[in-house]
């Protein structure tokens, strides 16, 4: 199957790609699906970093594919275990294929959304607003991956309703904190361009602070609301 026809199928009917346990299908389509996922994410990353120059753009184009790829794959064993516990067992290959097909679909959406994010960022948008726009875009484009992964859990079973929300919750938490570790994607206006920033506080306190800042309240700009999960004790 060519990458073009696979792209069409991923956009039109991703379930047709994902809902099989066939090792041959997984071996054949995994490489092109990976290319679609990583390529789309790199484009969105480049757009996100574009407001701070080409170097930041390149850094974000490297890091966003990692943010795209790692969390859904990290939670696969958990999904497998949850499905077993909830009496709806699902095979490893089916899970892997669903994750890859979902990521490819999200990658294609990310590529489509990249110009939409790049345009406001190129117009000197407020930093905090840019962060929220980036987070919103990222959440929107990754929804298909979550949806396809949740559909990999077979129907039936008395506790399926537990397995799917649990998957969404855990995946959301892992994505949020991975993104926090890999930041900055949208760099602060006067900050030095850097590949990674030190881990301080956690993503939730930062999102609270940036939401207030976007609304014009700068009293606690980027001051974490609590110490965070991984506190740097050397600074105390």
């Amino acid at each position: 199957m060519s990458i073009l026809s696979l792209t069409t199928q991923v956009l039109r009917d991703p379930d047709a790609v994902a809902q099989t346990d066939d090792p041959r299908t997984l071996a054949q389509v995994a490489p092109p699906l990976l290319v679609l996922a990583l390529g789309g994410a790199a484009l969105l990353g480049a757009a996100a970093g574009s407001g701070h120059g080409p170097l930041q753009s390149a850094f974000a184009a490297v890091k966003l594919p990692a943010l795209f790829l790692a969390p859904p794959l990290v939670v696969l064993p958990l999904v497998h275990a949850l499905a077993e516990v909830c009496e709806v067992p699902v095979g490893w290959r089916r899970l892997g294929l669903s994750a890859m097909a979902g990521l490819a679909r999200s990658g294609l959406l990310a590529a489509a959304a990249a110009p939409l994010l790049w345009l406001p960022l190129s117009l000197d948008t407020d930093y905090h607003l840019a962060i929220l726009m980036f987070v919103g875009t990222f959440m929107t484009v990754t929804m298909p991956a979550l949806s396809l992964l949740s559909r990999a859990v077979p129907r039936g079973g008395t506790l399926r309703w537990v397995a799917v929300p649990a998957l969404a919750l855990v995946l959301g938490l892992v994505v949020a904190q991975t993104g926090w570790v890999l930041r900055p994607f949208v760099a602060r206006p006067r900050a030095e361009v850097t590949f990674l920033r030190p881990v301080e506080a956690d993503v939730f306190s930062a999102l609270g602070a940036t939401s207030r800042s976007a609304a014009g309240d700068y009293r606690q700009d980027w001051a974490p609301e609590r110490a965070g999960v991984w506190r740097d004790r050397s600074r105390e």
Partner: protein
Amino acid sequence: MSGSGLALGLGVAWLAVGAAVGVALARQGQPRPTALSAVLAWPALVGLLGATPEDTAMTAGPYAERIAAAFQALRAALAETGLTATVDLPALAAMELALRRADARLCAVDRLLADEAVARDAGAERLGAARAHAAEEIEAVLRQLVTVRVQLGLVALAGDTGPVRAHLAELGARARALAEVA
């Protein structure tokens, strides 16, 4: 640990595991792009570690789509009726594999018979008859799988799983016998 150190450490560990899985897949005979993909996306591809190269390199024959659809429908029916736990899933996967292998052999025979030189040979008629018999057997197993789905509906109402398991065991034996037929 600094953010950079943590992220880079995790990244290196991820790639190291991915490289190990990729090497294992390559040694197993998987295509090079698949093995390379495993370096980055190894959790999605570890399921291939148990698969033989024959499983993944198998040609799709004339019944490939129907076989895939039949087993997908059967698995969906098992899940919907909550009977997945009552069926031997590895045996079901083995049955599917046996059918796909038989289907791939049909494809190879079709290619042979399409060659005019082979078609003119004295043994071609016998080969054609054997091909027709194997195809009939595959058709029969696929028809029986529909019957199993009907039985699953009855089991959902009546609760006796014995006939379904016996039927699937019989079909499994029939699918395995396809290797001898072919």
